[in-house]
């Protein structure tokens, strides 16, 4: 036994079993290098960068609760006689899909909680994607080099909306069945190919018996896989590009100021995950969602008034409601009313979302790379366009509740409908100049957005008054940021030992970010 071998043995003996196992794996896969790269990724601390994480974590909640639900859900339209615990359904002929959903709500321990958590998490998932997207839009986070990641995000939004629709259609209840009926008509409305598409998707004419099994496999397998793949790409590109950031406090185009993934950001984001899961669990436990036992089995000849889709389809439903009944009669072919709000509108919407990075670059001539984000007020035109467009969809979203609003405000339904028809044109026209003007005025206001300092009014002995601005706040010291480099010695032990990297100073590697 040579001396070197003996030293190696002695060194190994000092390592713990975990360290030795890690070393064994690392010798073979070199996970330390890439792993360290990941662990030291810097995340800016600003709260608005955590909006996408809400979507990520609610997606995890969706996966976990969804797996639970698939254990009990039967994706079949086969008719059976309900014989479960819920009295008003006992003896009714229902589909296996409906019966199994009611049974998993009432007869499976925690089943209803899981169902409601799943549904609430879906609402939060799509909502947080929209909020995240608004943040990226208004701060210009989609500009070069992040155009592709913006488009991947938009694709995930579309898929999330679709998957939500498929998911709430699965229980085969009265309300979602009406939604499927509408979806079938929307498909049919597409000129020339619509009927074929509808037959293809439904396996024949409406309603058929194929739709629930098909929706099921798309909902639980295909779309989640695609979303997972896109999510991996989204995050991979995020790591590749490094994080964008707001200017200030030492932030420059060529660096990232924030906390490293390990340990600071991991602790923060891990806690964030549990808080998001907690919000979902609280909503699932305390607030009823989609009580299908009240709705009953869907039959094409039964219908309930006041049927709306879930909110993320609401803007489409609202567009259907406010659209006047105009048809186009081509020779030998009629394009029905619903084609315009339900096919053309979403087509234009998502086309614009996809193309916006290219449109803006073309309009401004700004093809440069940007890692520092804009403040919305500094780009008043973009902010105004975004706000006006968003207000249009928000009005459409409100229009999906015309009947509920008319009922609660005790006004005529027709009045509410006409109010929305006018509002979806007028509101964006008003929002645009108002937003533009507000942006301009904030720009011109010195100290806008910074912490306000209270004025203290002091009364003197003579009875006069004097206004004294207070200290900004107790203990405030104006100082330069105390930026601390990530220590290298601790972080890249394995990499530093490797001889081929010695051309750079030991333990120090440049991380370039400008890709040209």
């Amino acid at each position, binding site marked *: 036994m040579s001396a070197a071998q003996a030293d190696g043995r002695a060194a190994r003996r000092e390592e713990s079993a975990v360290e030795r196992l890690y070393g064994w794996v690392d010798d073979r896969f070199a996970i330390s*290098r*890439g792993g*360290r*790269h990941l662990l030291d*990724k*810097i995340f800016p601390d*600003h*709260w*608005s960068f*955590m*909006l996408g994480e809400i979507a990520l974590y609610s997606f995890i909640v969706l996966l976990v609760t969804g797996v639970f639900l698939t254990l009990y859900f039967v994706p079949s339209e086969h008719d059976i006689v*309900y014989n479960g615990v819920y009295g*008003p359904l*006992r*003896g*009714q002929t229902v589909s296996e899909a409906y019966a199994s959903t009611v049974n998993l*709500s009432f007869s499976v321990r925690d089943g209803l909680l899981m169902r*409601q958590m799943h*549904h609430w998490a879906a609402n*939060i998932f799509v909502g947080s994607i929209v909020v995240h997207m608004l943040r990226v839009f208004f701060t210009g986070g989609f500009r070069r080099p992040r155009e592709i990641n913006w488009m991947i995000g938009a694709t995930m939004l579309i898929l999330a909306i679709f998957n939500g629709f498929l998911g709430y259609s699965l229980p085969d209840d009265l309300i979602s069945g009406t939604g499927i009926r509408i979806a079938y008509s929307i498909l049919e409305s597409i000129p020339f190919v619509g009927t074929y598409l509808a037959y293809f998707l439904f396996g024949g004419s409406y309603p058929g018996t194929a739709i629930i099994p098909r929706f099921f496999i798309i909902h639980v397998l295909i779309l989640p896989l695609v979303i997972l793949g896109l999510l991996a790409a989204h995050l991979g590109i995020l790591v590749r590009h*490094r994080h964008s950031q707001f200017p*200030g*406090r*030492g932030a420059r185009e060529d*660096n990232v*100021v924030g906390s490293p993934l390990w340990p*600071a950001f991991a602790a923060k984001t891990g806690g964030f995950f549990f*808080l998001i899961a907690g*919000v979902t669990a609280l*909503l699932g436990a305390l*607030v*009823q969602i*989609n009580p299908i*036992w009240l709705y*009953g089995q869907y039959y094409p*000849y039964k219908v*309930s*008034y*006041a049927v709306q889709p879930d*909110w993320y389809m609401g803007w489409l439903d609202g567009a259907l409601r406010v659209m006047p009944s105009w048809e186009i009669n081509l020779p030998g072919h009629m394009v029905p009313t619903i084609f315009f709000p339900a096919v053309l509108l979403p087509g234009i919407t998502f086309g614009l979302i996809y193309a916006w990075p290219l449109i803006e670059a073309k309009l401004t001539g700004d093809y440069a790379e940007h890692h520092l984000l804009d403040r919305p007020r500094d780009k008043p035109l973009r902010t105004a366009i975004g706000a006006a467009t968003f207000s249009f969809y928000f009005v459409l979203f409100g229009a999906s509740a015309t009947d*509920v609003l*008319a009922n609660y405000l005790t006004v005529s*339904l*027709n009045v*509410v409908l006409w109010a929305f028809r006018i509002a979806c044109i007028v509101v964006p026209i008003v929002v645009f100049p108002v937003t533009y003007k507000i942006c301009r005025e904030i720009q011109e206001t010195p100290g806008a957005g*910074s*912490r306000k300092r209270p004025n203290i009014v002091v009364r003197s002995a003579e009875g006069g008054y004097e206004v004294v601005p207070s200290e900004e706040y107790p203990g405030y*010291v*104006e100082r330069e940021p*105390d930026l601390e*480099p*990530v220590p290298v010695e601790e972080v*890249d032990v394995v990499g530093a030992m490797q001889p081929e990297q010695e051309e750079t100073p030991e333990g120090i*590697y*440049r*991380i*370039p*970010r*400008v*890709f040209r």
Partner: protein
Amino acid sequence: MLLRVLRQAATPAGVVVAAAALAMVLYPPHGRGAGAQGGGSTGRLAAPALVDKTSPSRSAQLALGRTLFDENCSSCHGIDAQGSKLGLDLRGVGAAVVDLWVSSGWMPLAQPTIEPIRKPSKFDRQQTEAIANYVASLAPGGLPIPKVDLKGANAAEGFSVFALNCAPCHTITGAGDALSSELSAPPLHGLTPTQVAEAVRTGPGTMPTFNSFVISKQQLVDVVDYVTRHIEHPDSPGGLSLGGVGPVAEGFVGLFVGVGACVLIALWIGERDRHEGHGGGHGGGQGGGEPAGPGERLAVGAAQGGVPVAVQSSGEGGVDA
């Protein structure tokens, strides 16, 4: 069977029985006081001539009904319920109609020009029945106040009948909703079995009348059972029901409570108010608006040019300049 009936009808006694039966069909007993409700008079022909033979309690009830009618209803509906410019002719509408409109608080109106709305009834049960029976006693026609016995009701059948006939306007949860123009379907919560049966059979306002050809006697009992006992689901699981108006309310909660809470959490654990040119000395890290201590640690990501400021990882991840 039919032959036997015909043969019996040929005898003098049969003629009397058949005539009575025919009269029963053509002129069903219409709210002659307690007898009509209790079924006491249903076996006999309740002809106007029998009014004199009413029991003292029934005549007392009719007297009470007359007093209440004169005080509360006659200003619009006329002193003999013959109607006026302000109110409908109530002769022959039957006790069920009057009972429904009075017990639901729709009538009497505060002013003759306003729309009827549901409110606590002005009268107690005894007074309401007195008014209804008094109005019914003025002219033949209409239905008596129905007596609904929920024993033997089948809630599942009632649910099915409800989904087919009632949900298209009242919504499947019975929450009610605005229909086209000024019309609306009222919520079905907090109703008595008698009111539900009266509404189904008499069709108040723009509501269609569902007679026994559409909803059979047993189905009526079933649907009354479903509406009065199950639709509100006092023990419905799952938490707050959000008014039973469906996905609109759920969407608002999902967006403004769900996403809102998540964004507030992000605000709480993320960094706020960092601004350009603000000096940037505060707000670092998890403390939110707290001033940063001198030891606060921030990290800088990448370096520019050849001046390494900080390090993140091995060079593999980046693209070399």
